[in-house]
């Protein structure tokens, strides 16, 4: 059986990649994808813990969180599409009307 530390390491790496992406990238769609990577890092954690536990609770949580993430992305893409139609750009560095 693969030791649980490896799973946790993988998820920590994925989480860091996602967080870095959210912080440094400027394309809205890429940022949304990075958030998905972070959510999946959490899902990997849950699945890893679930495989070492007799309870199915964590697996249920993963299914719920996948469904919720899908809903979030659906609304998110719609909002980015709207922002693109209004200003012809998905670059969030251009969103500077509202400041201070």
């Amino acid at each position, binding site marked *: 059986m693969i030791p649980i530390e490896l799973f946790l390491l993988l998820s920590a790496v994925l989480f860091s990649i*996602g967080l870095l992406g959210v912080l440094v990238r400027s394309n809205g769609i890429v940022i949304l994808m990075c958030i998905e990577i972070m959510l999946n890092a959490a899902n990997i954690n849950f699945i890893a813990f679930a495989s070492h536990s007799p309870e199915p609770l*964590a697996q249920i949580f993963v299914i719920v969180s996948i469904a919720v993430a899908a*809903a979030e992305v659906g609304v*998110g893409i*719609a909002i980015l599409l709207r922002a693109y139609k*209004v200003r012809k750009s998905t670059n*969030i560095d251009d*969103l500077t009307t509202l400041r*201070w």
Partner: protein
Amino acid sequence: MVDIMGFIDYVTPLAPHLILIIAALVAPAIGMKSGKATEVFMIIAGVFAMIVTGYLMWTGYVGEFEGLYQFNTFTGLMSLLFLSVFILVAMMSSAEGRKHHGEYFALLAVSTVGMMLVCAAEDMISLFVGLELANITAFALVAFKKNDPRSSEAAVKFLITSGLSTALFLYGMSLVYGFTGSMSINEIIYHMAVTDPSVSYMVAIVVLIAGFAFKISVIPFHAWVPDVYEGAPTPVSTFLAIGSKKMGFVVFFKLFLLLFIAVHFLSQIDDPTAAMRIHELQWVFGMLAAGTMIVGNVVAISQTSIKRMLAYSTIAQSGYLMIVLCVGTEYAMATGLFYMIVHVFMKGGAFIVVAALAARGLGENISDYKGLSKRAPLVAFAMLLFMFALAGIPPLAGFTAKFFLFSSAVTPDGTWIWLVAVAVINSAISLYYYAKVVKTMYVDKGTTSERIRISGSFKLAIAICAIGTIIIGLYPGPVLEICEAAANAYIGGFKEWLFDFHSELFPPIP
């Protein structure tokens, strides 16, 4: 034979939620016919849900739904609060989204249901679902002015910060599950209270705090708040300021306030060293609270847009409410709940005035309010009430709420006296920018003296808020009693559970 009475008993803990969900499902159909009818229908549904919640609270009902949701005095009180937020926002929404009235109200109702589910959640899964239900619908609401670039900009910013906070929350949650092996909030808190902090424990706590700090706009996670509040349609800004923010605080109460209480309780009955474990965590909250108050109030001074000014003042109010988390007593929680209720009326009222005037074509800059006392005397007077209440001038409710909240932090050991001092100084700073609005309305001469008449539902909403602000200020006893009962039901129930659970694991040696 279908067991109808059994079914009703089964769903009673979620009765207010179900009423609102059914109304939300019907709303788009009515919205096809008439916008005004939808508004009236949703307000009636909200009032009906309030009556049901009030009745359940009055009978002292306590119930559970599948171990996922619970109804007690605390969830009842919070449900009443969110339902009144919903009704106030529905009253001020008549001008929004003329073409999509049904969808607007459906989203608003579902978001309210999400907040109420968060309050009732007993389990991490149900907490997460409630949180996301409230969030995802809120994105759509912020973006509701489809062709306004400011609305879509605010929505993108809100989407990214909220998505990030969800991801942080979920990751922290997965680590917490890893070392507690449970999804029930009570059991998680018990395990966190008895375990000595390890590195993964620290990472999980930091990630969880960061995730929720976005929701309650604590520094350094506050930058999205002014942008979103300014860009979103005003009713939605109101909804976020007086509703969504409270939901974040409920989550903090559920996780961290209960953790502090559990640790103190365990140190009393069993393990005297336990209290040391959370000492640093309480100081972290203290620092965050002080920083949030200072940043919110100081930056609010230089604002020219009234919505941004109110947004920064909301950030400052979060700082005041954080005091509850530092102190971590039952009385502090009761005063925190009292402050939340008062905040709905005073901050809600200020936002409603802004929306009502914007609906009549007045700008959203503070300088646009010059000479308002001549153009709309009653509205200007209501605004004066809300501004002074927010600043904490007696005898208005804001003063009473701040007095109770700050006094709860003055404990015999005097740990949090410095925080109270910071809070009081900040209240004094905040008077400057609130009074500036009043001065603009009453002293400055306007360019025109044309009268502004606002529509009926706005008048009603402003009147409700103004009466609430005055009455609770003059006569706070009954409301504070309800808050104390709620805090008592919540924390007392938790302590009973904790005692049983602890003595089951470690039976007392005879």
